[in-house]
């Protein structure tokens, strides 16, 4: 059977995508600059005066969006590349290990499926957290924020259990290529989750000190962005690392 080569297609697609993004970014910036002319008409100045008297309006920036949000999206975009390289390292050395244990010897699919569900659930709780603070409901915010925190902590617990189980089976960072690349990838993801868990706990405590209000919902929003991104990365890792290892027809 003639093997289907996907590489040229994927490379061409991503190069094309990069160009499309450059064009999109260019037009987006052009649009944004257009909406902030240096010389403003009298009417616009009056409109701005009205805006200033409105306490809910965001600080005016060049992009029209809060800078902190822009920063986090740039960070997440760069994190894509970070995880991309780690996933590639895993794929390049897949099946190249000289000694066991091999992936199928150690993976416990049911356990990982449960922890994946929990992380997905935490993402759902996170949107409810944001939704409640945007409505100004502090009580609900605390409840959902703490639920998200607990889910994140449970996921971490599963990962610690999994790592300990793997090490017990004889798979260490230095055992084989599978061990090195697997621990590096899932460990890095685990560190991301751990940072997110600390962030959620911080927000939960901060809300009792009056730091989280409806007006400062942006703080919760960026925490949410980070948390969902960690979830999204796990979706990819779960499919590429765990599920593709499954024997077919079993």
């Amino acid at each position, binding site marked *: 059977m003639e093997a289907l080569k996907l590489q040229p297609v994927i490379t061409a697609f991503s190069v094309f995508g*990069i160009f499309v993004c450059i064009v999109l970014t260019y037009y987006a910036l052009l649009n944004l600059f257009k909406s902030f002319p240096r010389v403003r008409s009298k009417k616009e100045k009056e409109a701005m005066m009205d805006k200033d008297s409105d306490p809910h309006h965001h600080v005016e920036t060049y992009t029209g969006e809060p800078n902190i949000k822009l920063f986090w*999206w740039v960070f997440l975009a760069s994190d894509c590349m970070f995880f991309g390289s780690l996933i590639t390292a895993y794929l390049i050395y897949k099946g190249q290990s000289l000694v066991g244990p091999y992936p199928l010897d150690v993976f416990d699919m049911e356990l990982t499926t449960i922890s994946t569900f929990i992380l997905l659930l935490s993402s759902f709780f996170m949107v409810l957290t944001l939704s409640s603070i945007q409505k100004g409901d502090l009580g609900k915010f605390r409840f959902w924020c703490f639920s998200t925190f607990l889910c994140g902590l449970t996921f971490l617990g599963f990962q610690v259990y999994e790592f300990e189980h793997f090490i017990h089976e004889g798979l260490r960072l230095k055992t084989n290529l599978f061990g090195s690349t697997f621990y590096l990838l899932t460990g890095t993801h685990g560190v991301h989750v751990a940072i997110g868990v600390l962030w959620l706990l911080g927000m939960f405590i901060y809300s009792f000190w009056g730091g989280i209000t409806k007006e400062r919902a942006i703080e919760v929003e960026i925490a949410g962005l980070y948390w969902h991104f960690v979830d999204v990365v796990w979706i990819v890792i779960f499919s590429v690392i765990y599920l593709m290892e499954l024997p077919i027809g079993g």
Partner: protein
Amino acid sequence: MSDNKDHASVKQYIQVAIILALITWLEVVMPNWPVQWVFTFGLLILAIFKFIYVIQIFMHLKYDNKFFTALLLFGLFLAVGTISALMKIYDRDFTLPSFMAQSMGHEESSKDHSDDPNEANVVEDCDERVPFDIEIIASDPMNFDIDEIVVPSCSTITLTLVNDSNMEHNFVLITEGKGNEIAIAAVDAGPLNNYVPDSEDILFGGALVKPQVTESFIFDSPPIGEYEFLCTFPGHYVFMKGSFTVE
């Protein structure tokens, strides 16, 4: 902007969460379908679908400034490009069958011992063949107990490979002086091909023998001359090789 258009409603969030859970369930159940490419492509498509769903609704890119979408896509495309380029540099094509084979190798390799593909493709014409037995023991660390095998011409060789080690080994008979070349090609051949590359220099390529397992292979002796044998499991060639003489 009004509050309703800014982000999805709670009801919508619940719907998305249920759909995401269902997709994950589907992904886990899917290996029960016996078609390989459906499995690989299905997984990739479902993962991409989940990915898009989360960033569109949960991270509300759908309702946000399109600038953020462009920003994330920019990073994503750079990441995909990096992955693709790295795979090319390390010569790991996204060739679908072997892509799957990489993960399947350890389980499947032992099944096809009887009808090995490379069985004696250069055989001397003989009127009659005499049986000849060889036993070779592989032990830790990466060691064959003999480095010289002499067989009579016009014989049918029964080679018993005793794997007394903790690694997988195989027995491959090749033309003299091609060892290095074959050992390098073997890495790319991968575990599904028992690390036996497709080469004219291979006279017999045996299947991988699992640790603490003994397997017998039967093949006809090649014409009179000097040959070489080795284990083509990646990295083993350095220690596990020897001369094979037909006289």
